[in-house]
C-alpha cells in the first residue's frame, strides 16, 4: 500500500483499538510470539531490529535491567502495533508463578486473552498447572480466550497432536464455563499462522491476527442499564454539571435518572461532550450531565436508571494481590466506580485451587495469588451490579489503609 493510501485509511476508517493480553507458562514461547506479531506486522523500527540478536524475538519484550539479569519477565509490559484498519495493545503478562498478580492486572485491562501453550509439553492430554491457572483467571475475569498451540513445527505439524491439545483445552474450558474458546496451531519461531499462513496444510482456519481482529475491540455495553459514576462537578455559570465516564447504557436529554444511593429522581436537561451539548451519551463516553433541578450529589455517587439497586453486602470472587496476607477483622478501603468506602471481609467461603479447580474450604488467611469466594460488607451502599467482563460496576478493588498498596481485585457474583 502506498503511503497516501495508508494515511487516509488510518485517519478515515473506524479503526478499532483492540487490547489483548498474552499469557502462558514459562518457556511456552509467549515472548517469541509477541516478537513475531510485532515483526511480521511491520511494527518494528529499524533501530529496534538492529539491537536484536539473530532472530532473538523474545528480546523485544524484555524490559527492565533487573529481569534481563534474572531471565524472567517481572511485570506487565505494554506493546503497540497497528495494521491499516486496526491498532493493537498487547499486555504482556509474566508466566512466572510468583507474579500471577500481574496477569490479573493485565487481564483487567484487556478485551481478550491469548494463551500460549507449548504443544510439545502437553503429554497424555495433561496441561501444565500454570496454563490451567491462566485459563482460570481469564474465565474469572470474563475474557474471551484464544489458545495459540505453539511449537507445532517441532511436532512435524501433527494434526493428531494438535487435536490432543484441543481436546484438553476443551475439557478445561468446559469446567470453567468458557465458551467459544478457539485453538490455532502456530509456530511463533517460524511465524506460521501468526500473521502469515504456513506449516499445516490441513489447517483451513484463520491466522492468529485474523482471529484477534474479529473481536472488534472494547465490548459494547450500550445495551446495559445506565451507569455513570460521578468523578467531578463542573460549573457552567450558575449551573452544575456532573462529569464522569459512562460505564454502560445510553443517556439523553429528557431521560429520568436516579441520582446516588438515595435514588433521588431527576430529569436530564443536557448532555455535554467536551463542554458542548450532544444528542446523547453512550457507554464508554466521557460526558457531563446537567439535571433540570440540582441534586445533592458528589464524586462517588452514580447517575443510573431508575431500576438501580444498592446493597451493603455482596458475595464476590477475590484475587489477593498483596505480599501482606489478609488480616481477619481488618477494614480495607474499597473502590467501586469513583466511590471509596470501607469494607470488611466477613467470610471466606473457600479458596479455589486453580490447578485442579478444587475448593479448599474455610482457610484461615488469604495470601498473594489466592483466589477466594468471600462475603464482603461495606460501610456505604454500593451498586448491586454483578461482574461482567471488561470492568464496570461489578468490579472493585481493595486498598490497604496503612501501606496504601492495592491488595485485592474483586468481582461481584451475588448481591445480598
Amino acid at each position, binding site marked *: 500500500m502506498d503511503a497516501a493510501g495508508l494515511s487516509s485509511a488510518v485517519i478515515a476508517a473506524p479503526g478499532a483499538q483492540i487490547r489483548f493480553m498474552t499469557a502462558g507458562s514459562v518457556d511456552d514461547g509467549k515472548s517469541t510470539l509477541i516478537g513475531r506479531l510485532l515483526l511480521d506486522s511491520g511494527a518494528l*523500527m529499524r533501530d529496534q531490529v538492529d539491537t536484536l540478536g539473530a532472530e532473538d524475538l523474545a528480546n523485544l519484550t524484555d524490559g527492565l535491567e533487573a529481569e534481563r539479569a534474572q531471565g524472567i519477565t517481572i511485570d506487565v509490559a505494554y506493546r*503497540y502495533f497497528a495494521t491499516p484498519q486496526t491498532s493493537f495493545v498487547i499486555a504482556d503478562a509474566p508466566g512466572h508463578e510468583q507474579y500471577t498478580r500481574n496477569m*490479573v492486572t493485565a487481564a483487567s485491562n484487556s478485551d481478550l486473552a491469548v494463551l500460549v501453550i507449548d504443544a510439545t509439553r502437553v503429554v497424555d492430554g495433561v496441561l501444565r498447572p500454570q496454563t490451567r491457572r491462566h485459563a482460570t483467571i481469564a474465565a474469572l475475569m470474563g475474557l474471551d480466550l484464544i489458545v495459540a498451540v505453539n511449537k507445532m513445527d517441532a511436532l512435524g505439524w501433527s494434526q493428531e497432536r494438535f487435536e490432543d491439545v484441543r481436546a484438553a483445552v476443551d475439557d478445561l474450558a468446559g469446567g470453567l464455563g468458557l465458551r467459544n474458546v478457539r485453538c490455532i496451531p502456530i509456530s511463533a519461531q517460524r511465524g506460521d499462522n501468526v500473521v502469515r499462513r504456513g506449516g499445516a496444510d490441513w489447517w483451513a482456519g484463520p491466522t492468529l491476527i485474523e482471529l484477534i481482529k474479529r473481536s472488534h475491540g472494547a465490548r459494547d455495553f450500550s445495551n446495559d442499564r445506565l451507569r455513570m459514576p460521578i468523578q467531578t462537578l463542573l460549573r457552567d455559570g450558575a449551573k452544575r454539571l456532573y462529569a464522569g*465516564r459512562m460505564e454502560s447504557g445510553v443517556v*439523553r436529554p429528557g431521560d429520568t435518572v436516579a441520582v446516588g444511593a438515595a435514588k433521588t429522581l431527576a430529569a436530564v436537561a443536557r448532555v455535554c461532550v467536551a*463542554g458542548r451539548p450532544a444528542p446523547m451519551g453512550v457507554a464508554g463516553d*466521557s460526558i457531563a450531565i446537567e439535571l433540570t433541578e440540582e441534586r445533592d450529589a458528589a464524586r462517588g455517587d452514580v447517575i443510573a436508571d431508575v431500576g438501580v439497586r444498592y446493597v451493603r453486602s455482596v458475595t464476590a470472587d477475590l484475587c489477593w494481590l498483596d505480599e501482606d496476607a489478609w488480616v481477619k477483622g481488618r477494614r480495607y478501603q474499597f473502590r467501586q466506580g469513583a466511590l471509596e468506602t470501607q469494607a470488611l471481609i466477613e467470610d471466606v467461603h473457600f479458596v479455589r485451587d486453580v490447578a485442579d479447580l478444587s475448593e479448599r474450604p474455610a482457610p484461615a488467611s488469604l495470601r498473594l495469588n489466592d483466589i477466594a469466594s468471600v462475603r464482603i460488607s461495606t460501610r456505604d451502599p454500593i451498586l448491586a451490579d454483578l461482574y461482567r467482563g471488561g470492568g464496570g460496576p461489578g468490579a472493585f478493588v481493595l486498598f490497604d489503609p496503612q501501606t496504601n498498596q492495592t491488595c485485592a481485585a474483586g468481582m461481584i457474583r451475588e448481591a445480598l
Partner: protein
Amino acid sequence: MRLAYKLDDAMSSAEGAAPRPAPTRLDRLESEAVYILREAAAFVRPALLFSGGKDSAVLLHLALKAFAPQKPGFKLLHIDTGHNFPEVIAYRDQRARQTGLDLIVREVEESIRRGSVRVESETASRNAAQAVTLVEAQQEFEFDALIGGARRDEEKARAKERVFSHRDAFGAWRPRAQRPELWSLFNRRLGAGEHMRVFPLSNWTEADVWAYIARERIELPRLYYAHERAVVRRAGLLFPVTALTPAGENETIESLTVRFRTVGDITCTCPVESTAEGAEEVLRETLTASVSERGATRIDDRANAAAMERRKLEGYF
C-alpha cells in the same frame, strides 16, 4: 417522560435519533484520557507538565475538553533545561496566556547554581538533570500529582509504567513495588511527602498523537513541520547547528528541509528530512517510518539501552 433504559428502547421511541457511528480508536483514547484527567483533578495540588512539545500540547487540549466549560484546576509546570528551542518557549508562553492557566517555570540552570545538579559541560545534555529540578519543584509547591504526556510506546522502561505511577518521598520509581492497576479503578493513595505521576496518554502511539492533532487541528510550534535548517551529519543523524551546538571544524554545514519529531534538549534532539507541511502529512510519514521516534532523534537514549530506566529510578519523568 421517558426512562433511561436501554439503547433499543431509546431507538424505538418517537424522538429516537439515528444510531451513532461506532467509536473509533481515537474516540476510545480521548474518552480514556479525559477520564484519567478527571481522576487527577481529585488530588489536592495537581500540576500538568507543559513543555510546549506535541504530547503536552495534546494533553493540554484534552484537559480543556475534560473540564469545559470550566478551566482545568491544574497549574502548568515546565522544567526548563535552558537548552530549549526559542520557538517552543514562545509557543509555551502563548498557550499559557490563551488558556489563562498559571505557568510555573523552574530552571535546571538554577539547580546547577544551587549545586543540586552538576553538569560536565555547558553543552552536555540536560535531559537527565531535569529529574532533580522536577522533584525540587514538586516539593517546593507540594504538588501531589504531576500529569505528563509520556506514552508507553516510546521506550522499553515506559512500557511497564502504570497510568497512576507512585513515587516515594525521594521522587523515585520502584518498578518492583509497583501497585497492580486494575480496570480503571486507580489507586490515588499517598503517604507523607509522596506524589503521583499520572499519564493520560499511556495507551497512545506516536501515530495516534498525530492523528489526533490532525483531527482536532491542534496548533504546534513550527519546528514540527518542514522548515529550512542548517544541519551537519554525524553518525547517520542530522544535528541542528545552533549557538549551543556549533558545527565542528571539519564538518560541512548543509541547509536542508527538515522537521523535528521531538523537541527536547537542543543538544540531543535531531531533526529528520521531511517536506511535511501539516499534521496529516506528518502522520503519513510516521506510519511509514522505519526508525522509532526516540531512536531517530534522541542521542542520549541511543547511548545506552537502559538509560531511560536508570533516569526513571532517579525521578525522571
